[in-house]
């Protein structure tokens, strides 16, 4: 049995201190927000340093720091490598970010593009996928907060989860995207520093030899390069990451927010910086057998190992790093999802004539509402982090081809886009339940591609991209 690495009091004290700092940040930065462009898109002129930091910090989620170890603990070496292929999504989004900014200089959301490009039906299918994914990710982040605090300090899951949700919702509500990006910058520095420290401590506390021997003895398949599920996982995870980034308003809102000519470089650099982080996080999980740690649920392996090896000081470092990773993603997701709901549901469906002022106000209520709904869905702790996350892969990977072909190819048709998302999601879900979580995104992507190409061939569409630049802010 492992004693808690942190006392409950220490854990809650750190949470309260960081929480107050982040909320103060949100309040101070929020006072600069004068209009909807400021609140939703930080004034559309974010520079390279902040752009890179926010892209990297947002993609370093609690999933990176907790699901990467879980996947390594379940799928071994290829699990670790496969998880780091999530960087490919950021790298490939670099040229897309440039294209998005160019095509839609006044755009607000990914939904804006899909609606203009493919019409209302495809837009609504896309919104369903996008919102489903957003909630899945929000829940996984909320849960991760509770699991982290519980694994390191024994503080009950519901208390840790509630405190973290409260802090993140508060500063996002107060500061909008400006606060999100500024806190991301600070969190990036914390994450990078912490990961280097943790990696160094793991390697010096447990040698490679001992680590290798224990894993080989107790979990032999984890070291096998012919572990079938892990081989299936590799490209599934790559395509899942691509699907997440390509479709999600978290990344589109940043593409709109970054200054002209910044987006491509920021995403590319962020992808390179992100790549080693899941390798380090995953590596930590392989130390569990050598340390004799019992792992009640696979998503607890990361903080359990870190807490054991690193003692109280190290546990505090881990706690701060994971909290930063979690907060930097939770705030981005809250902000971007609220933007999507404000622009595409509130202004798009409920109140089409809504002014920017009304949307500004609605946006704040929506952030609060999202926070409450997420909290309610986190309470029952339905599944593990990886299972929840990869469930959404069946949906998001279906949106890759409508986005890529939609941005570059005039032949991509409206019916094709809608059908490819529906078919991809359906078959992806089937693959998830029939085979496993490690193939859902891949199946979805394959079916979506075939549907997109075949239906577009019969549709014979020709789209004029110049019509996108006519998209006005208030349309």
């Amino acid at each position, binding site marked *: 049995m492992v004693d808690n690495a942190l006392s409950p009091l220490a854990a809650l004290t750190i949470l309260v201190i960081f929480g107050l700092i982040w909320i103060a940040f949100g309040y101070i930065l929020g006072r600069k927000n004068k209009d909807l462009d400021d609140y939703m898109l930080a004034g559309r002129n974010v520079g390279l340093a902040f752009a890179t930091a926010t892209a990297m910090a947002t993609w370093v989620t609690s999933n990176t720091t907790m699901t990467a170890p879980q996947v390594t603990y379940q799928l*071994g070496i290829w699990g670790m490598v496969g998880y780091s292929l999530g960087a490919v999504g950021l790298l490939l989004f670099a040229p897309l970010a440039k294209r998005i900014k160019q095509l839609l200089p006044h755009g607000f959301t990914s939904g804006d593009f899909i609606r203009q490009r493919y019409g209302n039906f495809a837009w609504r299918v896309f919104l369903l996928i996008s919102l489903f994914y957003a909630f899945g990710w929000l829940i996984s982040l909320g849960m991760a907060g509770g699991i982290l605090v519980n694994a390191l300090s024994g503080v009950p899951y519901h208390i840790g989860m509630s405190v973290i949700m409260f802090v993140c919702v508060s500063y996002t509500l107060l500061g909008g995207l400006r606060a999100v990006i500024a806190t991301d910058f600070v969190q990036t520095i914390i994450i990078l520093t912490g990961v280097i420290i943790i990696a160094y401590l793991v390697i010096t506390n447990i040698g490679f030899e001992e680590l290798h021997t224990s894993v080989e003895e107790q979990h032999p398949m984890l070291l096998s390069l012919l572990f079938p599920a892990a081989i299936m996982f590799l490209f599934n995870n790559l395509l899942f990451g691509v699907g997440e980034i390509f479709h999600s308003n978290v990344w589109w809102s940043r593409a709109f927010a970054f200054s002209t000519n910044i987006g491509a470089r920021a995403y590319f650099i962020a992808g390179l910086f992100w790549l080693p982080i899941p390798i380090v996080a995953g590596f930590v999980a392989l130390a569990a057998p050598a340390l004799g740690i*019992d*792992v009640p*649920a696979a998503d607890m392996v990361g903080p359990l190992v870190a807490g054991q090896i690193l003692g109280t000081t190290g546990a505090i470092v881990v706690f701060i790093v994971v909290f930063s990773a979690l907060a930097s993603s939770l705030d981005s997701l809250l902000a971007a999802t609220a933007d999507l709901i404000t622009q595409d549901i509130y202004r798009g469906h409920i109140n089409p004539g809504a002014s920017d002022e009304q949307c500004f106000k609605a946006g704040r209520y929506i952030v609060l509402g999202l926070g409450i709904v997420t909290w309610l869905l986190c309470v029952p702790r339905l599944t593990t982090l990886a299972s929840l996350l990869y469930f959404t892969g069946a949906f998001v990977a279906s949106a890759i081809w409508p986005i890529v072909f939609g941005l570059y190819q005039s032949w991509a048709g409206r019916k094709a886009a809608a059908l490819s998302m529906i078919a991809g999601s359906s078959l992806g879900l089937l693959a998830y339940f029939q085979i496993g979580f490690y193939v859902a995104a*891949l199946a979805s992507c*394959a079916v979506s591609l075939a549907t997109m190409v075949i239906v577009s061939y019969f549709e014979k569409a020709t789209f004029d991209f110049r019509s996108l630049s006519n998209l006005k802010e208030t349309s």
Partner: protein
Amino acid sequence: MLSWNVSDASRATSLQQSDSPEFSSPVTRVVSPEGSLTITGLADGEYYFRLMQADTPLTEPLRVMVQHHDLERAGLFFVLGLILFIVLVISILLGARNESQHHG
């Protein structure tokens, strides 16, 4: 993932794992009062598990079969994934190149 009831959880000190029902040469794993343990990375085969209280068995042996996916099937998924990735990269590169020619 293996789980057991609260009463056993409070008394169990370890979990034994063996590839024979007689528990010859068992692997012993530590357990916590959480009442569950996740074991990963086992090779194909038959395994037996039982909870122990010090040196005394606390439960009847549980038989678990581990059977991984067929390697050929895994290879097919890998190749499919690789093809999709190559198509994706080419699509983006061609699109970006046409865009820069158009604007250049």
